[in-house]
């Protein structure tokens, strides 16, 4: 485990360095000088000279990178010269709704996928399994942005859920219930998208686990079905599920950005799209860096978790 941890840790640091270099280069890849990119339409020769001095843009590139990295590591993303606010405070406002969407949708989809997949896997090829399999295959072809747009009319007009329309986002500080109501459509859409993936993976893995000889052995010893599932089947089968959560992160981030955009939730996705259209390259740079880092670190955590659950992985 120690060696595995070290190897994963080295890979993590290496990826984070690569990400930071690419994010740093965003400003320098743009046509024109970095000061033109940062100041945008508010560019003046005086402002540019001041900025060059402040950010050390007259230094060699490697020095600029190291200074920038030092700032970023202390969560100092600097001043946004377009909105005249500190970028860190923008991120602090934008992160909570995004995290809420991601965490809730993952809890719901996993909470549903595990029991439903178990029920299907215990009776493979029977009616429920076939229906669930067919339905999930069909839903796999429906992108989250289609699900979310198709949910609007049923939820807002037929079910008449209050506060569930668009542009009705209520922060959590104004009451949890209204907050959840306002996020209902994005959460449902994201949960469906993730549920389908988790259900399919977990069902397939559980069916093959239940065919293993040690399950037959446990069964012949007269161990109860519940105990076989919890003690013998879930642990090996959860490895594939957990790796899938990591793989699914990319789709989840995409879905969350779109859900935020569609439901006008002031989260990271909305800020990113706003930064693209502004264009506000400093904010863009900070968001790309922070989001990518979070995704990579979560994947790293999931990797360690699979190594813990299945020691064969970490011994390899």
């Amino acid at each position, binding site marked *: 485990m120690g060696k595995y941890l070290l190897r994963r840790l080295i890979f993590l640091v290496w990826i984070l360095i690569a990400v930071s270099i*690419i994010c740093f280069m965003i400003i320098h*890849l743009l046509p024109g000088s970095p000061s033109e990119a940062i100041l945008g339409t508010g560019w003046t020769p005086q402002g540019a000279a001041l900025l060059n001095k402040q950010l050390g843009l007259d230094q060699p590139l490697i020095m600029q990178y190291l200074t920038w990295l030092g700032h970023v590591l202390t969560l100092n993303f600097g001043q946004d010269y377009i909105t005249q606010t500190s970028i860190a405070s923008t991120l602090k406002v934008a992160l909570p709704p995004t995290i809420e969407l991601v965490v809730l949708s993952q809890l719901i989809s996993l909470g549903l996928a595990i029991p439903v997949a178990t029920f299907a896997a215990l009776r493979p090829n029977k009616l429920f399994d076939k229906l669930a399999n067919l339905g999930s295959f069909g839903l796999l072809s429906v992108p989250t942005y289609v699900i979310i747009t*198709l949910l609007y009319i049923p939820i807002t007009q037929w079910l008449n859920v209050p506060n569930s329309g*668009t542009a009705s986002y209520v922060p959590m500080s104004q009451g949890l219930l209204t907050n959840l109501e306002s996020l209902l459509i994005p959460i449902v859409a994201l949960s469906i998208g993730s549920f389908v993936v988790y259900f399919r993976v977990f069902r397939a893995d559980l*069916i*093959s686990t239940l065919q293993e000889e040690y399950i037959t052995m446990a069964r012949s010893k007269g161990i109860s079905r519940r105990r076989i599932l919890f003690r013998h089947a879930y642990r090996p089968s959860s490895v594939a599920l957990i790796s899938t959560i990591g793989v699914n992160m990319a789709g989840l*981030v995409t879905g969350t*950005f779109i859900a935020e955009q569609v439901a006008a939730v002031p989260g990271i996705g909305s800020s990113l799209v706003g930064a693209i259209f502004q264009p506000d*390259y400093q904010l863009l740079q900070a968001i790309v860096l922070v*989001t990518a880092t979070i995704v990579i670190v979560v994947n790293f955590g999931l990797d360690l978790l699979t190594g813990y659950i299945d020691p064969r992985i970490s011994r390899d």
Partner: protein
Amino acid sequence: MTDYPPQNSIHPSPFAQSPPAFPREDHSIHEPAMPLETIDDTEHGFDKEKRQSLGWFFWCCVVYFALNVFVALFANHLHLTDPYLTTATNPNLPVNGGPTSANWFGTDELGRDIFSRVLYGARVSLSIGFGAITIGFLIGGTLGVYAAFRRKKIDAVLSVSMYTILAFPAIIFLLAFTAIWKPISLNKIIILLGIASIPAVYRVIRGSTLAAGSREFVMAAKVQGASDFRIIFKEILPNILPTAISFYMIGVATLIILEGALAVLGTSVPPPTPSWGNMINEGISYINSPNTGVGPWLVLFPGLAFCLLLLSINYIGDKLREHFDVTEGKL
């Protein structure tokens, strides 16, 4: 389209027909043995039957997919309403109108015919899906075969760099690059998505080349002194082709979804080009204001077009994979 070659010609194995000496552990989910519930014996004949024919639904998907390709290629010869015709040139056009005999799918906020825009939208989705994955296969596939064949240093370097890119959350960087590489166009989107798909293709192709390269007939060819060129093109490539084809189809579907996501966020091919993602992006603002009386057709039809095309591509890819899938246990 003609029938696919039977699997035995793809995987020439003298053991293919004979039953295995020992009933090996088979993890294929399509052949459930005996979990906690008993299964009647009729289920066991099912798998063999299934692999002989692809089933009627497969051919439905192929027909629907071919229809999409046809429409994408010949949209301007089909005498459709001009997808760019707005109320600016013809003030009599209905705005946000429902489906009628003149506008089968209704019209959008500028009076443009949705039916015609959906049909033209197939162009964007299909050209991006196929264009990008082709770039991915040309670069990622070549590198994958090369790395798996050469092994040693080149493989290590390539694999580390590919896994590095693979660890990046693609959508975030795609969004960043659409912001940097302005003005964005169809070709640029194809190139960006193509580059994004390289590491995934590399991983799959490298994996199956490694597996194929360690088979006996490749060693036999090596021992006989066959050239590298011959081994790669005559021995390895035919054997990784089934995996490659089904991954190609799945890649097309994935990239179409990704392009749609970029378009819904408004960072893909710029409007007024008709694309399904753009149409959903434009329709969302109308769906969101419930009092305008606008029906769901603004997003329903492009959404449906997405789902049906993706379903047919996914099903074709999945069926082909299943059809060609010869696990070691069955040899």
